């Protein structure tokens, strides 16, 4: 159980980054492991589980807004929670555009102009690649554990499903954008169901729902993630995982700026 409690909120936040994949890719725990524990222990366990992980994924992102609808096919790699690389494969005009996340920094490589640009702090809350995810969503995941206090706010049956509801509140001095994140977890399967984000005034801002669990290398992971902004009910961003593998061997410099700049 501990694992999910700590992991699910990051999932929601991290839609695009591969770090998210890690979170999704937790080994399905046996029922025996699903025992309530105290928050401290859960956190520690999760941190340990998280470290040293790596992943590789192919995913499709579908963005629907009032003004445009587009799809991107992306390949991504992650190393731990701190590093991730996402490269666009389709559409052709954006092919090769690459985002590198290292700790709290985000860099974009634009092949057409052969340039690497760093996202300035002022642009952190703007859209990532026109989706409903912000650049901040990419980086905030890595600081999730240190920024939020999580507790089990509900445990039991709701609408016929056995769930855990976990409420995460930012620590007083944490520099985060959310006022509260509520994560719902499917108790029997220990999979995330949804994450609901509130701003500092307690207003519902957006909802992320997870669906269609699939086995990727023996791990059961929701293969679809749908983000809906509250103020624009007709808009959404959906991420569909087409391939996902864990503990892959990555080139040592894959997350380096030099390699990003070389456009490989």
């Amino acid at each position, binding site marked *: 159980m501990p694992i999910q409690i700590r992991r699910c909120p990051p999932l929601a936040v991290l839609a695009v980054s591969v770090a998210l994949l890690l979170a999704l890719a937790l080994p399905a725990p046996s029922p025996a492991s699903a025992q309530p524990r105290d928050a401290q222990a859960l956190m520690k366990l999760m941190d340990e589980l998280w470290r040293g992980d790596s992943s590789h994924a192919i995913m499709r992102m579908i963005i629907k807004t009032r003004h445009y609808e*587009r799809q991107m096919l992306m390949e991504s790699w992650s190393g731990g929670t701190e590093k991730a690389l996402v490269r666009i494969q389709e559409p052709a005009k954006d092919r090769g555009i690459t985002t590198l996340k290292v700790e709290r920094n985000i860099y974009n490589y634009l092949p057409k102009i052969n*340039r690497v640009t760093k996202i300035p702090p002022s642009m952190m809350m703007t859209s990532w690649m*026109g989706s409903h995810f912000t650049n901040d969503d990419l980086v905030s995941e890595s600081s999730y554990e240190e920024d939020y206090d999580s507790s089990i706010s509900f445990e039991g049956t709701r609408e016929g499903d056995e769930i855990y509801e976990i409420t995460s509140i930012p620590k007083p001095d944490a520099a985060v954008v959310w006022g509260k994140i509520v994560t719902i977890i499917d108790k029997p399967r220990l999979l995330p169901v949804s994450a609901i984000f509130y701003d500092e005034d307690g207003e519902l801002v957006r909802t992320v729902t997870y669906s269609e669990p699939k086995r990727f290398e023996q791990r059961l992971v929701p293969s679809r993630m749908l983000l809906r902004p509250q103020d624009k009910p007709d808009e959404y961003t959906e991420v569909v995982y087409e391939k996902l593998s864990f503990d892959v061997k990555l080139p040592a410099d894959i997350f380096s700026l030099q390699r990003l700049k070389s456009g490989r």
Partner: protein
Amino acid sequence: MRIGFHPVAVLATLRVLVFMAWRNLWRNWMRSVLTIAAMVAAMSLMIGLGALMEGLLRQMETYATDLSLGQVQLHRQEFIDDRELYAQLPADLLQALEADTPYRYAPRLYASALASAGDLSEGVLLKGVDVVREGQVTRLPGHLRRGSFALGEPVRRASAEHPAIHPVVLGYRLAERLKVDVGGEIVLITQAADGSIGNGLFQVVGVLSPVELGFDRSGMLLSIQAFNTLMVMHGGYHEIAVRLPPDAPVEAAQQRIQDLAAAWTVNHELPATGGAVVVRRWQQINPTVADMLSFSDIYTTVISVIIFSIAALGMLNTMLMAVFERSREFGILMAMGVGRFSLTLMVLLESFFLSLVGGLVGGIAGALLGWWLEVDGIDFSSYMPDGIDWAGVILEPVYRGHLLWKHVWTAEIIMIAIIMAASLIPTWRTVRLKPAQVLHG
């Protein structure tokens, strides 16, 4: 010499009075010349000021309309409110307007982007223009400090190995800030209309002369095709600027375009985002300049009243002196039977002649000054080579006046009116003279 009622007698009396007044004027010629000189100075100042004001207004109007605004503009409401990228006027509307009216139309597109040259980056305002049509509506294509306005064709076409390089023209301060000149390469990064990262290579082909403070600092011109490629947009416009034939009434044209646009929207569908089509004339788009233009008439009148009042004080002084020192003379005239009315008329005539001579010479001097200001102007270019930014309008470094006949005759009328008003005081004294008193000393 009491004025009789017979017309011949009246004329004869008048002739004598006119003769006396004219001769009196030159009895103390030095004083008269000095007074006239004051009036000439006031007149010249007034006419020169009027010409300078007119020159300024014409420059402002020219800058407001010739360089970028046009006389009428079309937008979607949301573009006016928020510069909404998706609030576009369809290309079909432009074609309909061009087919139905004799006016010239220049479509434009706007977006913000990040421009980099070498290690320097600046936020820029992109303005997509139709090179040919823009030249029919504004003087912008010729308003270059360096280089050319050759935005039409790509510098390098796209190929398998290389992306295309499109030409851009920069505001002069932006060029300074990015440290680029004609031939320099610029990279643009922006959020395109489909949400992707719009990015591309560009080459500077021209640098503009000063247009307007904001545009000088951040404006970047490119062709509509290059704009649409960068921004992943298709076929709409944010703005259509209109140029009317010379002397066409702006409001009537605005109404006509408004009616045509309204009729068009009945039969065609506007893109969903953007709101109504709004047609405004330049005075509505740039009320600051328009207000200043209408205010200037009041301003010029107030200034002229002040200047002429000062000249009138000099006049008042002269005439009072002339009346005082001739008290005895007037007494004798009255004792000889010259009526008060005749005497008053004579003093008034003296003032009138004085102002007439002053007005004539002053008018000529003022016209010459105005003409010189119009032809040569005042050259500030050694202090301010880029011109002066005044209320958001860039004024040329050589300040030229513009002389209108209106300036000369209004100055003439105002001056004679004020001088005559001032001369009523000495006249009043004359009327109240008591011959017996003044003759006794």
